[in-house]
């Protein structure tokens, strides 16, 4: 135990006296005239319900959050009366622009609205009714093995930071919870897909895991968010798009996953944009970080355990012609994905189109 109560309350006569007084009907009512803002929020649109945006008012709103949170290290709800003696809950991320994105409240609301359930939203019986050819099923299983591995990391990354983030950033923390459950769903769906197809899981990837560990163990939250929510999410969204044509069941799986990952990407882009708008001096720092870290994109994308099943599935088989066709398609896919990633960075304010080393490794005319 690292934290103990300030006294043994069982022997605290003051407490016993207070409790007896209250239970005799002599209430303190010390809270009754709390000097907080009086508000009555209502839904602006009854169909959409009461959103966080509807509650973005006065001292309660996120609109008025200061860049530096200096006056609350507890879990006291934003806008409530802060009383003396509240403990420090150990938050180490107290600067708004280190975590915030203008779209975060809307993304949280969207995440709740678009929830789905792998157990029942997929027609699992269709897999047995219309099995894929053995080589394609094996490739799906290998792809799902890699995606389960990646999803575990994408689930764990927000969990590592959420308890360090000041509670004043409630909507952001809530969004990170939505991201965790989205990725839990991906862990689940890819595992189940592999186990339901008749093949089981295949091989984990040493190179992808080395790269994933580097992303997961980023030193700061902006670095972690940039690497996971922008760089890795760009790759994974591309993989989902690329893989959606395998079968009707798989198309539905990948479409559902795509909407979750697109949301992560929207947060990541919004976050880094906000971060740089408020801390422009960090641009060079993030460039330097990506100079060192973008190799992990290749470590994942070029790992045989991800690359090869993508080629087999793109070419729809393992014949020589199919593999040649598949490899050309995947080459284009990788170039397109890196282009899209660099476009996003450019739109955020991190133009790396001439600086990044990634393009030369994915160019369709590369050796």
């Amino acid at each position: 135990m690292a934290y103990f109560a300030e006294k043994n309350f069982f022997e605290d006569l003051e407490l016993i006296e207070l409790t007896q007084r209250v239970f005799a009907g002599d209430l303190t009512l010390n809270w009754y005239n709390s000097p907080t803002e009086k508000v009555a929020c209502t839904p602006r649109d009854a169909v959409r319900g009461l959103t966080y945006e509807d509650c973005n008012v006065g001292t309660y709103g996120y609109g008025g959050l200061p860049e530096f949170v200096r006056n609350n290290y507890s879990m006291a709800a934003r806008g409530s009366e802060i009383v003396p003696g509240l403990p420090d809950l150990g938050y180490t991320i107290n600067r708004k622009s280190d975590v915030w994105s203008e779209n975060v409240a809307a993304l949280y609301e969207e995440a709740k609205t678009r929830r789905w359930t792998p157990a029942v939203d997929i027609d699992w019986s269709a897999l047995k009714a219309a099995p894929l050819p053995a080589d394609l099923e094996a490739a799906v299983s290998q792809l799902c093995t890699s995606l389960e591995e990646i999803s575990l990391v994408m689930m764990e990354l927000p969990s590592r930071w959420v308890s360090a983030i000041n509670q004043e950033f409630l909507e952001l923390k809530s969004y990170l919870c939505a991201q965790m459950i989205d990725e839990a769903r991906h862990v689940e769906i890819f595992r189940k897909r592999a186990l339901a197809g008749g093949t089981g899981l295949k091989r984990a990837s040493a190179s992808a895991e080395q790269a994933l560990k580097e992303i997961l163990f980023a030193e700061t939250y902006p670095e972690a968010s940039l690497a996971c929510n922008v760089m890795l999410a760009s790759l994974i969204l591309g993989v989902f798009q690329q893989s959606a044509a395998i079968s009707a069941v798989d198309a539905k799986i990948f479409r559902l996953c795509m909407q979750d990952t697109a949301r992560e990407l929207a947060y990541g882009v919004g976050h880094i944009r906000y971060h740089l708008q408020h801390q422009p001096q960090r641009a060079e720092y993030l460039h330097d970080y990506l100079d060192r870290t973008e190799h992990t994109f290749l470590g994942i994308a070029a790992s045989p355990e991800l690359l090869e099943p993508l080629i087999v599935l793109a070419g729809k088989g393992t014949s020589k012609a199919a593999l040649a066709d598949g490899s050309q398609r995947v080459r284009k896919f990788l170039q397109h994905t890196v282009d899209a990633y660099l476009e996003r960075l450019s739109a955020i304010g991190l133009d790396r189109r001439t600086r990044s080393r990634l393009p030369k490794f994915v160019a369709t005319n590369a050796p």
Partner: protein
Amino acid sequence: MSYLSTIDFFEDKDFIDKYQYTLRTGELDLSWMNAATEKVQCEPQNARRGLTFRDCDVGSYGFTDMPELIRQNRSFAPRGAEIPAGVPDLQAEVNRKSEVWAYNIEGYYEEAMSRQWNATTDVPWEELRKYELPEAIGKAYSQLLTFLTEVEMIATDVPAKWMGRLNADFFEVKNFIATQAMDEARHAEVFRKRALTTGWGLMRASKANECNLKFLRDADSFAEASLTLHLQAEGMVLTLFRFSELISPTEVDKKMFRLVMQDEARHVGYGMQHLKWVLDHFPERREIIHRHLDEAENFVFGGGYATEVLEPFIILSGKGMKKENIEQGLKITAQFNLKQIDEYFERLDKCGLPERRERSKLALAMEMTRAVIAAQ
């Protein structure tokens, strides 16, 4: 926190050459096709429930045959997959199944996924226009909601803090933690939104309760954190929700409490089944559990200082601040306090810790409460 991959992939000539050769020629290694893993075809046992984790509890992929100590996998390799040489150590700190596991963990996870609800749309906020609460009730209710808003997300922060420390072979637990994080975010959201619709807004934070939150946050092990968070604290909050449904001022509020109760009951269920698992599989923990509960109960008793929770409850129970209202409110509140502690001991009984009732100093609180009831 920082890790650099053992390989810089831009600089690894063999890796790059192989990748570029593959893309250029379409000649693949394909050795993964013959990965040494089990061939299975899992199917839903019940079409209506869909394909569940229980349906996937087969052979090397399953959780039933998972060993007590995870010695073979310290990476993110999915359980049952072939683990190649060179996967990194993810630095998991919890590699013993009985430190985290719970009977029916897979069922709690599936239930959580299927019973997600939306605080924005599943509470009929528009109907609140029909109600106008008297000042005393409105303020008392806002104060109760302030307390609930304040405490809910500790149950996000604590499990989330542990998720990354658990071995990836325990992914069902990690997934359950993810659902709990979302559940608690939704609870903080719904109580906050409700407070902001009352006309009074949020009110006063609670020092006594926040110190308790810090205690929950700083437990030494996952088993201790779960014991006090899931079983003790959330168990007591579950009783509070049940009484809050009873005393809440509108039908809208009753619906809100029914929704949060189903989530909370799931968390308490996990906590109980986890403690039961610990006591069944790691009996050496029993004394540590008692020691941790000794301090947890000290905080519970110290909660008497939280008049900002106790008093609104009295006013809401008695439906006002007149003398007769307060008298009625005190009766209901005393019953509630007694019920809260009694249910806590009952839960511990069911988990296999019946001696707690005798050892606990909370008996003192029960005596005081009984005296209040007798005096009334």
